[in-house]
């Protein structure tokens, strides 16, 4: 049994939470569908998004240098980081030089990827998440379970109890508006006190040297408006050629992710305000190697919209924590394998190959097909599940000869005469609780044909 399968079994055991989690996420998928329906040129947009990304990736070095030139000319400072350690060191060096103690950050998957928050906390920098969902998870001391909806697995009653503990809200009050206002009041001083702000980057526009940051809460804008040091971190795949390309992506991002026509705030940072500094850190951390992997370089087209998670029937029914990589769902299965097959191959079973993800993806990433491809690599990497391998070899043997196959059916018919308790136990995995074995027919089609044709 894979690590995902074991963890998923625990999630499935709570039927009520399962139904609720599934429905909450499917509702987002449905909102996305309604938004798509309002854009007749949707499929053209997806194709354009995919082609723009592929084009940019094919000249990644050129576009990154163009971005660096233009951003620098605008008065921003650009840094390069080869890996997570270099990124964290650069961030720390900037904060230290600035004399910063308090960092207010908006959501960044790259910060999670690089383990930045614990790194900074260990150096005495208070790091506060300003996205509401991320803040809830931070106060719960739990990682996000979804990249766009980090607190989707937390129920409002649980948020009510948390806020009662942390902010002294009324006991038993879990009204979302009430709790949001409480969070807002509690976050306000954090914004005011912060001496450094951090944002991720949704798109870096090479031709203008501008950064696009998309949020729904305006928390990135609020953070960068107070502190006079703004550090923006981005994976190198976030660069796009120009503003026209940005128009394609902003039309797709929020529609796909949350079913909104556009994110509430789409802010472009071009030059620092007088007396302020903007530093951009361009982070590789494995990406240039992924680019060399022909079967999986498509992952670098990802906009991080989360649509593949919302549509994934397995993710919806197993939850973010059933995956061992910090990003779950079809996206996380693939990114985890790019990061380290040895550490994260326990997730590749979490796919029924329904290919809904490949069809929902606004950048036309072949997510499902890539999971299939990873499965083919496991044996070569020495990571195939020995039980599964034995089962496949057994199947191969039986299917490899007609006598073995048709003899096997006869044996199967005999085996069915055994008591149900013998057949439907833990050793026969088809007979999961809740699913009966299909009975063999008294006569195979092959046998029927032979007899029929003799007539």
């Amino acid at each position, binding site marked *: 049994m894979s690590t995902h399968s074991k963890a998923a079994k625990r999630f499935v055991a709570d039927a009520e939470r399962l139904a609720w989690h599934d429905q909450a996420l499917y509702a987002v998928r449905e909102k996305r569908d309604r938004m798509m329906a309002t854009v007749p040129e949707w499929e053209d947009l997806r194709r354009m998004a995919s082609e723009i990304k592929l084009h940019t990736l094919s000249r990644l070095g050129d576009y990154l240098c163009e971005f660096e030139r233009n951003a620098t000319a605008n008065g921003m400072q650009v840094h390069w980081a080869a890996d997570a350690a270099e990124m964290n060191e650069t961030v720390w060096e900037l904060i230290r030089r600035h004399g910063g103690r308090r960092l207010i950050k908006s959501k960044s998957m790259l910060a999670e990827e690089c383990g930045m928050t614990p790194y900074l906390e260990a150096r005495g920098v208070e790091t506060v998440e300003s996205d509401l969902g991320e803040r809830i998870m931070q106060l719960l001391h739990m990682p996000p379970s979804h990249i766009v909806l980090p607190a989707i697995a937390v129920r409002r009653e649980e948020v009510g109890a948390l806020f009662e503990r942390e902010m002294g809200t009324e006991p038993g009050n879990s009204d979302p508006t009430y709790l949001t206002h409480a969070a807002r009041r509690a976050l306000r001083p954090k914004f005011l006190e912060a001496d450094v702000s951090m944002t991720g980057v949704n798109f870096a526009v090479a031709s203008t040297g501008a950064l696009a940051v998309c949020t729904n809460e305006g928390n990135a804008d609020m953070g960068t408006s107070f502190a006079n040091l703004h550090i923006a971190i981005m994976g190198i795949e976030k660069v796009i050629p120009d503003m026209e390309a940005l128009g394609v992506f902003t039309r797709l991002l929020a529609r796909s992710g949350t079913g909104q026509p556009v994110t509430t705030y789409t802010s472009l940072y071009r030059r620092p305000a007088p007396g302020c500094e903007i530093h951009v850190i361009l982070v590789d951390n494995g990406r240039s190697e992924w680019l060399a992997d022909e079967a999986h370089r498509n992952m670098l087209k990802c906009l991080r919209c989360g649509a593949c998670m919302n549509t994934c029937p397995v993710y919806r029914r197993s939850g973010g924590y059933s995956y061992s990589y910090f990003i779950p769902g079809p996206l996380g299965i693939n990114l985890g394998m790019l990061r380290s097959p040895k550490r994260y191959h326990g997730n590749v079973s979490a796919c*029924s190959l329904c290919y809904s993800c490949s069809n929902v993806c606004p950048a036309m990433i072949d997510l499902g097909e890539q999971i299939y491809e990873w499965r083919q690599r496991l044996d070569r990497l020495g990571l195939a599940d020995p039980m599964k391998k034995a089962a496949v070899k057994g199947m191969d043997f039986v299917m490899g000869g007609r006598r073995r196959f048709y003899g096997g059916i006869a044996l199967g018919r005999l085996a069915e005469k055994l008591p149900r308790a013998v057949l439907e136990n833990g050793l026969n995995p088809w007979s999961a609780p809740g*699913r009966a074995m299909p009975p063999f*027919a008294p006569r195979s089609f092959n046998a029927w044909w032979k007899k029929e044709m003799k007539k």
Partner: protein
Amino acid sequence: MKVGLFIPCYINAVYPEVGRASYELLQRVGCEVDYPLDQTCCGQPMANAGFEKDARALAEHMNELFARYDYVVGPSASCVVFVREGYPRLLPDYREHACVDARIWEICEFLHDVVRPARLDARFPHRVSLHNSCHGVRHMGLSSPSERQIPYQSKLRDLLSLVEGIDVVEPERRDECCGFGGMFSVEENAVSVAMGRAKVGRHMDTGAEYITGADASCLMHMQGIITREKLPIRTIHMVEILNSRS
């Protein structure tokens, strides 16, 4: 037109009536049908589990069995998709010859696109909920995937419209996966059964007496759940409906 009937392993062993209905149906619409004996498996279960290369011998066997037919037609969308997409990878040296992957069709797709019968003389006076299987929808185009901005079409619905007395409905979340997925149903059996239960529930919500589709493997998985929970609905393969008599 000489049609070689492709009967996947589990249909041969568990659902021979689906094979018989396929044979009769193809004859009824005027095809010359033959069944090359001693078929076993196309190799899809091994491939989906991560051992596609192990299916090579099976692919060679299939290729030999079906060498002499104009068309290869089988009642299982996912098996047909595997042969079509997987065999060119598995049999690179066979490309110059008439290779099975270039001539294989799922039976509903074959009827809809190639035979195009004007009538079927079939009658099935029941409410039937359509099961849009993932590989049939997203890798074969039997109907438009709900994720995409393409006008709705369904080859299965088109064919069922030729059946007298039938009432065709579709469940909410019309093409969400039922959770079979071959080895997935074994390795991830908790999630697989949870998906299957939800799917059967949505089919039942339509008030249908039957769940039908072009993938017997999805139907087998859902029937397992129906049987275990003694639910008031049953599965039936598309060909059995299309082959019913008026």
